[in-house]
């Protein structure tokens, strides 16, 4: 198959499945709260609806930075799709992409001049502490397997069995990281409803739809990386089941926990990271 066709197909699949998973999350959260909830395709419909709405650009916004930052978010998650399903490249790139996602959250918030965006901007800097568990996961994976390349990791797990059993604490830390990216999660301080919509507040219409598209691709990619790095060579139905199961677990956690205060959110994530790092190195040494 043509490389470009491969990339395009993977991007479209990532977008569609990511949106459906977000919709599934909302449905499960609603049912736990005792209400019927929106249909599962609601997130997809919202994304498309926002995309064609009339947009206004704030008078006080930093142009063209305000528009360019949304294009950068899409660019990095397309790069993640290329690194992941298409070529099976380096995990360090996924880490880099995650770091740049934080940057986009930071600057989409501050580029409009709105006070809510500014609050989200500063919270995004705090939430960069969530990178510590990701860094630890990468180091532990490298020390366990000797490689950072996704294709090599799949081959390693074909021989030695899933990494989920070998380094379970690293898997837990990665799970906490995915949890912090979910909407309505206790760690989602940059998008909390106490600051309206955080960094997305002043990106209306077209740009909001664009941000939502990139976030759907991001969600799919995070789950894909987790399943590939910790479960190894699995077939497509198992990928889908795994993603649905993980989104459901995350929906349960999101429905039953409140949004934490920014400082507490970071404290919890760093505590999990500390336990994970110390525990994993202890397990590696034994």
């Amino acid at each position, binding site marked *: 198959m043509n490389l470009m066709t491969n990339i395009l197909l993977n991007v479209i699949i990532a977008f569609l499945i990511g949106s459906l998973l977000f919709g599934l999350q909302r449905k499960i959260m609603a049912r736990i709260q005792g209400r019927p909830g929106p249909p599962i395709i609601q997130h997809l419909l919202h994304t498309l609806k926002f995309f064609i709405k009339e947009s206004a650009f704030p*008078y*006080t*916004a*930093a*142009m*063209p*930075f*305000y528009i*360019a*930052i949304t294009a*950068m978010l899409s*660019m*990095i998650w397309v*790069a993640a799709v290329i*690194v992941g399903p298409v070529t099976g*490249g*380096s995990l*360090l*790139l996924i*880490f*880099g992409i995650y*770091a*740049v996602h*934080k*940057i986009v959250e*930071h*600057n989409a918030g*501050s*580029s*409009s*001049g*709105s*006070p809510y965006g*500014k609050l989200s*901007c*500063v919270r995004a*800097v*705090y939430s*960069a*502490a969530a*990178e*510590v568990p990701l*860094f630890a996961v*990468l*180091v532990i994976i*490298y*020390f*366990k397997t*000797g*490689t*950072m*390349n996704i294709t*090599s990791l799949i081959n390693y797990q074909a021989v030695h069995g899933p990494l989920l059993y070998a380094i379970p604490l690293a898997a837990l830390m990665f799970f906490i990281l995915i949890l912090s990216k979910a909407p309505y999660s206790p760690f989602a301080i940059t998008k909390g409803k106490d600051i309206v919509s955080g960094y997305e507040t002043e990106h209306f219409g077209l740009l909001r739809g664009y941000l939502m598209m990139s976030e759907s691709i991001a969600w799919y990619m995070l789950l894909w990386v987790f399943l590939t790095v910790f479960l190894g060579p699995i077939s497509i139905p198992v990928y889908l089941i795994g993603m649905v199961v993980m989104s459901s677990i995350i929906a349960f956690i999101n429905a039953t926990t409140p949004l934490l205060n920014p400082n507490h959110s970071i404290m919890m994530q*760093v505590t999990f990271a500390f336990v994970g790092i110390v525990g994993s190195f202890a397990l590696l040494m034994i």
Partner: protein
Amino acid sequence: MDITILGSQIIGIIPLGDIVFYFTQFNLFMFATALAFTAIIAISKTETQVEAEFGKLGDRAVTVAKKEFKIRRFLAIICGLATAGAMITGDLFDFTLFVCLTGIVNIGIVGAVRQVDVLDAAYQYGLIAMMASLPLFGGAALILAATGTISLLAINTLAYTTPMMILGSILLFIGVAGETGVAPFFATKAEMFRTPGSPFLLIIHLSSLLILVRLIEILLIINKPF
């Protein structure tokens, strides 16, 4: 090119005499991202922050004045170029120099604003950045002493890690953590971001995060798995 670094192939090398820049998939992406953001910053205007006034129903607009804008934009572009250089350098000492330059320019970008609490935060960050230059260069020097080379491509081929290299790596990590203002020093840095001038704040944050990611690659090159 047959060299592999952390599992990925080297795509190319730019030899500028002693200083060698190398490209892998990862470095190239970081380099391109840093340059893309620098280009966006070079052509952008700044935003006007809107805040409520006490005692009245009006809004107060906080903007970036023209002269302040020009100097901050210049420093932001330098910071972006230094970050891009730090992404691809194959030289440990070169990397530490770029990090030091990034730290200085980060303070400069915020040093031109007129808000007292932002300047206070920048001052505290500046103190830590200056103190951190000791472990930063000390760590690089220790690694040079322990391995006999500052070239990352040469260190990549070494077979095992000595305790002195581990000590050098720890010092290097502390140095970069202080210079770029990551945890636990990031609290003051977050206060620096409350000022207007969004494109310039981007490069402060971007430089810190990209340098940290690159540092992890360098530390993993120096410390082999056991």
